[in-house]
């Protein structure tokens, strides 16, 4: 059996398989199905400074090989997380990483500051790419200057591993990646969802309450893979790849393209045990190809 350990900057992972924010709740929703401590990390639901109710229903539409969502960062706020959720999740024997979002830079900073003091939260994922909120979110992540600005101020207050989650809704994702790297991001994760839309032709109305939403699932995988490949070549910091991963082969493709680790998102809704299957599949692949360590396949694409 190959060595599956991976380091993402200061973050030590027992294996490269993690679950994406907004698709895995706080982990405990999945503990009936498998031992969630076996995976490398859990990115918990997007957290903001204050309680957010999210967008009105309908928030989801099934699409060809994927889905559109417009949840809009529904969460009970960082203080609720610290007081009511952290005491439980801190006992899960894997990396618990909090995805942080905000409407203003000040909100990002205050939320990140509060997370500094939590011993069992080794990293945050700065979400500058949520397409479903009116202010903040993706607005920060689609422009080099604003992306750099929010990373710069959060970097000043946040001491642990700072992962920045990038938006694919840009002309050149490498430019954004370089801009956040220059301001001290320790790693980048990509892609967040692609902005999309669905229409009910019979009623002549949009299906989502917000008209547009974020597309995820295997439909986006080729785009995500291309973007991970581009970013991995552009930056020196580690890249965490995601976007439509449904099985081990998909995950391996992302690693060959340059991702040091991967996140599984939408697939969790269809098979809550998918992350373990991906982990086992990566293991088989490494054995089959005679690799001693999973690090050997990172960026091993032959062109």
């Amino acid at each position, binding site marked *: 059996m190959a060595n599956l350990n991976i380091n993402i900057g200061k973050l030590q992972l027992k294996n490269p398989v993690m679950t994406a924010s907004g*698709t895995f709740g706080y982990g405990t929703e999945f503990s009936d199905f498998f031992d969630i401590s076996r995976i490398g990390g859990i990115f918990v639901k997007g957290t903001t400074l204050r309680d957010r109710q999210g967008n009105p229903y309908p928030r989801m539409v*099934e699409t060809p090989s994927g889905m559109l969502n417009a949840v809009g960062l529904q969460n009970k706020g960082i203080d609720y997380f610290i007081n009511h959720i952290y005491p439980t999740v801190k006992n899960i024997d894997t990396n618990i990483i909090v995805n942080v979002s905000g409407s203003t830079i000040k909100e990002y900073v205050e939320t990140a500051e509060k997370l500094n003091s939590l011993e069992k939260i080794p990293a945050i994922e700065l979400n500058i790419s949520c397409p479903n909120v009116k202010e903040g979110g993706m607005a920060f992540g689609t422009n080099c200057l604003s992306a750099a600005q929010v990373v710069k101020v959060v970097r000043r207050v946040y001491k642990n591993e700072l992962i920045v989650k990038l938006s694919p809704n840009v002309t050149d994702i490498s430019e954004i990646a370089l801009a956040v790297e220059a301001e001290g991001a320790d790693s980048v994760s990509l892609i967040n969802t692609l902005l999309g839309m669905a229409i009910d032709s019979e009623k002549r109305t949009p299906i989502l309450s917000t008209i547009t939403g974020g597309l995820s699932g295997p439909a986006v995988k080729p785009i995500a893979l291309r973007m991970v490949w581009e970013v991995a070549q552009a930056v020196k910091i580690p890249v965490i790849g995601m976007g439509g991963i449904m099985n081990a082969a998909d995950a391996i493709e992302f690693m060959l393209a340059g991702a040091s680790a991967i996140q599984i998102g939408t697939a969790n809704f269809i098979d*809550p045990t998918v992350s373990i299957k991906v982990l086992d599949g990566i293991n088989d692949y490494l054995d089959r190809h005679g690799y001693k360590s999973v690090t050997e396949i990172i960026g091993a694409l032959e062109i």
Partner: protein
Amino acid sequence: MKKFMLDLIVKKNEVLNNQYSLLILTSHNKLPEMLPGQFAEVRVDHSPTTFLRRPISINYIDYETNELWLLIQIVGDGTRKMYELKAGDTLNLIFPLGNSFSLPEKKDARILLIGGGVGIAPLLFWGSYLKERGYTCNFLLGGRSKDNLLQLCEFERFGNVYTTTEDGSHGECGFVTQHSLLKASNFDYIYTCGPTPMMKAVASYASKTKANCEVSLENTMACGFGACLCCVTDTTEGHLCVCTEGPVFNITKLKWQI
């Protein structure tokens, strides 16, 4: 209640008419315990246009014969695949999911279960559960025509059955809320499942007659177990997931204009 993801075996798929079938599932192992009102998330294989699972109410459970019943109505490609399943096929389910209906406080409570179309599905299990515990049930079932009135014989095992059809082909003509039973009798507890306009009309009747009323919602879901937060409904406690906090809600908790 522990959730499972299991491959169940199709024991029989009984075609009720060209729109509905009764899918009878079984397992080599003992089926887990479940409660009336709960549902399953069904994975639909070999349907290229069906990406997500489909939430389907638990219609009935028989622990002795180890059978789990799902009532299927063809709505799109996913449910059509389920309608076409044959004995011996397997079907992957995540279940049991969601909460359940709540028992009336007193055994002599006057109870009415109102269902419309395929929405009658969870009421059969609920009716059997109530009867087993010594309650007396009345069922008021409605459909567009007699083809949409399903499982009447099954319901008759567990209580008095009243029907309405919009075309008058079975029972009284009109909507369930126009049935003479509602004028003639009073009920302490009303449970309903069906199209939203019907449930709102029932909720309005219940609220006027001061009956305790629970409705079973069926919002669009991605996961079914509280991870995606897509299926929310607006309540007095804010947005709540229908899959974990529901599907059964007391009408006093919902922000319905009734």
